[in-house]
């Protein structure tokens, strides 16, 4: 059956009533930003994923493709941003095929907000949607409850305050592509250094009018792990083994079956 399945919801409510607390999902305690420039729009994100206070993934991807020239940055519950983004990307492609038109940012944003509003904020997806389409370059954001904003520069996530500090000081109208990239990566960097929920690298995506979108995966890597000073390799045989079983996957067996042999039934399917 299509759609979400609520079977376990009751069980978990029951379990919760018995004193079992809820497990924690991976969340992207995140810094994401977006900024328009003369001929397009840039979005950027950090690459840290957290589960509670543990860093679950040091180099995750928070920039999602909705359409070839419409990209979005996601903050909030990691699974929700990923799934909602994949769903809307599919619907957007079907829609553009049906209408025989290039997908538009406003369409993507509307599909997202209507889906998220339907779930009344229970899908924890906070997105910056940006891209270029036949009507120009656009930059919008969608909140989990379904509200949306349009702006020249935006930031979202736990590091949004740090990022906004940079955007508010350094933003100016009609920036060049390079200036916008610089501004966005600076904003993310401030999130990486000053927000505990954000860290590792900067991912960046530039969407310029009339051109293919450019994804700069790991545009900046200010947190490269230094090489280990010594190897912790163990001598073979360190670990005591009680039992070993081997399953050979390449077990080639050759049998020659000559033609016309009277008694040979080897080629029969049912011997």
């Amino acid at each position, binding site marked *: 059956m299509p759609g*979400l*399945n*609520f*079977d*376990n*919801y*009751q*069980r*978990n409510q029951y*379990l919760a009533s*018995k*004193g*079992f*607390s*809820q*497990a924690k*999902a*991976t969340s992207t305690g995140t810094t994401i930003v977006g900024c328009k420039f003369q001929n397009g729009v840039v979005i950027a994100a950090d690459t840290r*994923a957290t*589960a509670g206070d*543990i860093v*679950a*993934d040091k180099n*995750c991807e928070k920039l999602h493709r909705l359409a070839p020239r419409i990209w979005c940055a996601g903050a909030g*519950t*990691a*699974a*929700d941003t*990923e*799934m909602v983004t994949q769903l809307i990307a599919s619907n957007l492609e079907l829609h553009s095929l049906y209408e025989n038109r290039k997908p538009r940012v406003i369409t993507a944003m509307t599909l997202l907000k209507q889906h998220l509003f339907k779930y009344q904020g*229970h*899908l924890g997806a906070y997105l910056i949607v940006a891209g270029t389409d036949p009507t120009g370059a656009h930059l919008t954001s969608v909140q989990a409850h379904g509200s949306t904003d349009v702006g020249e520069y935006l930031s979202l996530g736990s590091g949004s305050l740090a990022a906004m500090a940079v955007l508010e000081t350094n933003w100016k109208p009609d920036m060049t592509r390079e200036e916008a990239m610089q501004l966005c990566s600076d904003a993310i960097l401030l999130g990486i250094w000053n927000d505990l929920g954000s860290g590792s690298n900067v991912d960046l995506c530039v969407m310029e009018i009339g051109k293919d979108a450019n994804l700069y995966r790991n545009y900046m890597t200010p947190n490269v792990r230094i090489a*280990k000073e010594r*190897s*912790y*390799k*163990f*001598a*073979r*045989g*360190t*670990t*005591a*083994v*009680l*039992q*070993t*079983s*081997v*399953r*050979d*996957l*390449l077990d080639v067996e050759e049998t020659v079956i000559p033609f016309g042999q009277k008694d040979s039934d080897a080629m029969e399917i049912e011997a």
Partner: protein
Amino acid sequence: MSDPSSINGGAAVAMVGKDCVAIASDLRLGNQSLGVSNNFEKVFQFGDKTFLGLTGLASDVTTLSQVFRLKTNLYKLREERSIEPQTFANLVSSTLYEKRFGPYFIGPIVAGLDSKTDKPFICGFDLIGCIDFAKDFIVSGTASDQLYGMCESLYEPNLEPEDLFETISQALLNAVDRDALSGWGCVVYVITKDRVVKRVLRTRQD
């Protein structure tokens, strides 16, 4: 009582080596502090070189291993080939996200080799199916904090199968010894191009 994913206890880990992967789990099943079984494997095979580690609520571990057995068998009938690790990871993800608002209390990890290219693949998930693609190692279970520490320090890239076995074994062994809910035996699978080696480790029994 604490959360459902730490009633039974258990730990699992997967690592990438040179043209090989390894996946391992402990064998304990408990009821809070009481050890019930020392023979509860948390690694399951779906296809020639596709493996799944499942930690968390034991009931859900069994349920999901059966669900995936069904789904991969149907996949095999439809496609006339066994499932690739990448494909299986997406199957796990969507199966878990289907229950977004009433999740299974598990922490799955996938490890395997692509059947065509023999390229190593590992990944992990949270309980609602968010995939964590890692290039080095993935941990899960009640000893995950300890495993993060062990793997982060012991792991190095491009280990030969024999060395990968030692590294993953020592990482798991020493992690579960610092977790009251994990241990009681360990099992390690090392998957290479043409063979799968399963080893049962000698461990502490406390």
